[in-house]
C-alpha cells in the first residue's frame, strides 16, 4: 500500500501519468481542441442568464457574479461573525442571570454592594433595599446614576422608595412624640413624591402616599397652607412657599 518505498523504486513503481509510449508526443486525446469543444464541466454562471437583453437579468447576473467572487471570503467571515454575535448574546444572558441573582439577594434582605455602573434594575433593587432598611443617605447617588442613564421610570420608582423611607422615619418620630424632626422629613418626602410623580404621573402608589404625607403636614400649624374653597395660582408669585416674610409691626 505504501506509495514510496525508496528513492530507487519511485520511478519504477509509479510511472508518471504522461508516460505513454510516445512520451510527449501522446496528444491523441487532447488533439481535438479546434473541433467540437467539450462542454464545460461546470457551466460558468459568470456568463449571465440566457436572456442578457433584459436589464434586470443583467443586474442579477452581476450580483450573482459578485457573490461568486466574494464566496471564499464570505465563507470565512460568516462563521466568525455569527460566532461573535452568539458570544455577545451569551455574555448578555450571563450578565442578566448575574443581575437576577443580585436582585433576588437584595429582595431577600442581603446587603449586596452595588456599583453605580450596574444595570438600572439592579440600582433600583438596591435603592429599595436601602429604603427598607432606612439608609437614606446612600440612596441619592444611586438615583442620580439612574437619572444619568435616562431611566425616567425607574428613577421615579426609586424616588418613591426614598420618599417612603423618609415618611416612615417621620412616622417613627411622630410615634415617639418627636414633632420637630418629623416636619422637615415629611416635607422632603413630599418633594420626593412630587418628583416621582413628575417622572411618572401614573404611579398610583406615589399619589396615595403623597396624600398620606400631605394630610400629616396639615396637622402642623407651622406648615399650614391657606385652605379655602378655591385656590388661585398666581403665576407672578412663585415664592409663595417661603415663610417668614417680614410683616410690618407698629
Amino acid at each position: 500500500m505504501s506509495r514510496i518505498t525508496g528513492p530507487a523504486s519511485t520511478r519504477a513503481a509509479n510511472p508518471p501519468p504522461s508516460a505513454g509510449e510516445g512520451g510527449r508526443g501522446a496528444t491523441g486525446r487532447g488533439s481535438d481542441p479546434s473541433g467540437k469543444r467539450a462542454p464545460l464541466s461546470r457551466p460558468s454562471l459568470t456568463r449571465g442568464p440566457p436572456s442578457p437583453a433584459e436589464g434586470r437579468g443583467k443586474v442579477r447576473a452581476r450580483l450573482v457574479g459578485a457573490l461568486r467572487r466574494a464566496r471564499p471570503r464570505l465563507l470565512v467571515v460568516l462563521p466568525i461573525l455569527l460566532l461573535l454575535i452568539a458570544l455577545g448574546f451569551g455574555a448578555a444572558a450571563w450578565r442578566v442571570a448575574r443581575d437576577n441573582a443580585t436582585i433576588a439577594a437584595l429582595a431577600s434582605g442581603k446587603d449586596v454592594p452595588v456599583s453605580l455602573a450596574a444595570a438600572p434594575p439592579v440600582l433600583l433593587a438596591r435603592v429599595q433595599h436601602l429604603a427598607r432598611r432606612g439608609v437614606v443617605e446612600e440612596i441619592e447617588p444611586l438615583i442620580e446614576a439612574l437619572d444619568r442613564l435616562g431611566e425616567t421610570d425607574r428613577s421615579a420608582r426609586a424616588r418613591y422608595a426614598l420618599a417612603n423611607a423618609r415618611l416612615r422615619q417621620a412616622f417613627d418620630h411622630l410615634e415617639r412624640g418627636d414633632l420637630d424632626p418629623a416636619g422637615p422629613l415629611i416635607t422632603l418626602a413630599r418633594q420626593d413624591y412630587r418628583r416621582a410623580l413628575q417622572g411618572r404621573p401614573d404611579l398610583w402608589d406615589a399619589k396615595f402616599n403623597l396624600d398620606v404625607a400631605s394630610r400629616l403636614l396639615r396637622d402642623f400649624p407651622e406648615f399650614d397652607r391657606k385652605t379655602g374653597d378655591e385656590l388661585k395660582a398666581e403665576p407672578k408669585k412663585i415664592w409663595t412657599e417661603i415663610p417668614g416674610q417680614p410683616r410690618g409691626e407698629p
Partner: protein
Amino acid sequence: MRRLAPILFLLCSSVAAQAQVRSVEVRTPRPFGYFLGDLVRAQVDIVVEPGFALQSASLPHPGAMAYWLDLRDIAVSDASVGDGRRVRLDLTYQNFYAALDARALEIPGFTVTFVSESDRGATTAKAQVPAWSFNISPLREVQPPARAEPQSYMRPDGRVAALDPQPLVLGGAGFAAMALVAFAGLAWDRTWWPFAGRGGRAFALCLRRLRTLFERPDPDAAYGEGLLALHRALDETDGRRVLADDLPTFLARHPAYRTEERGLAAFLDASRHTFFGSGPAAGTRLLAPSDLVSLTRRLAAIERAS
C-alpha cells in the same frame, strides 16, 4: 374734513387692533374627575389675522406655576384657517393639590403677544387666554379608619421584577447554531475534517498530500510523489489524462486556471525532466518543491472560487 381725517384713521386703526385677534377658545377633555398627580390638559385655539406671528417669549414657561400646579409642557402648532391663522397651544399641567374633598381649582389665564412685522414698523396684538377651572377629587375618605401602626396607611415600596434572560439565551443558541452551520459550510468548502473525503476538490487534497510528503526525510522521492499527486489532481479536474501538450486544451476547458498557465507549464516541464530526463535534481531546478506547494495552493484557491 381735513382735520377729521387723522382722527378717523385712529378710530379705524383701533378697530383694526381689536380685530387682529379674532377668537380665543379653551378646550379641555373634561373639567372634573382629576386626582392628585394627574395630568390636566388644555387646548387653546387663537385665531389671528394673517401676518401675525406668535411671540414665543410671551408664552408661559414650563415649571411650577404654584405650589400645587406644574406646567409640564407647552406645544405650539400653526395652521391657516380660512383667511386667518390659527395658533394652537397644547398645555399639559400636573395637579399636586391633595384634596380632602371634591373641589374646584382654577388654572390662571395668561396673555399671549402676537407681532406683525411690516416695513412701517411692528404691530403687536395681545390675546387674553381666560382662566379656567376643573374639579378634583380626593383619593381617600376624609377620616380613614384608625390603625395601630400608622405606617400601614402607606402603600408598599414595590419590587423589581427579575429580568427575563430567555430571549437572550434563545438568540445566543440560534446564532451559535447558525455559526455551526456556517463552519460546516467552510469545512465542506475547504475539505476539512468530516468532509475530507468529499470529491470535487482534487487540488485541495493534493495540497494536503504534498504537505505530508515534504515532511518526510527523503526529498527526492517526495518530490516525485508530489509531482505525481499534482498530475492526478489535474487528471481528476479535467476528467481525463492531462499530458504536457494538453495544457492549452485543459486551459480552454477550464479558463479559471488560465492565470496559472506559466506555473502549470513549469510543472509539466519539471515532471518531464524528472521522470524522463536526468531525474528529480533537474526537476527541482525547474520547479522547486516550495514552488510546487505554492502552485498547488494557488490552484486549490482557484478551485474553491470556481
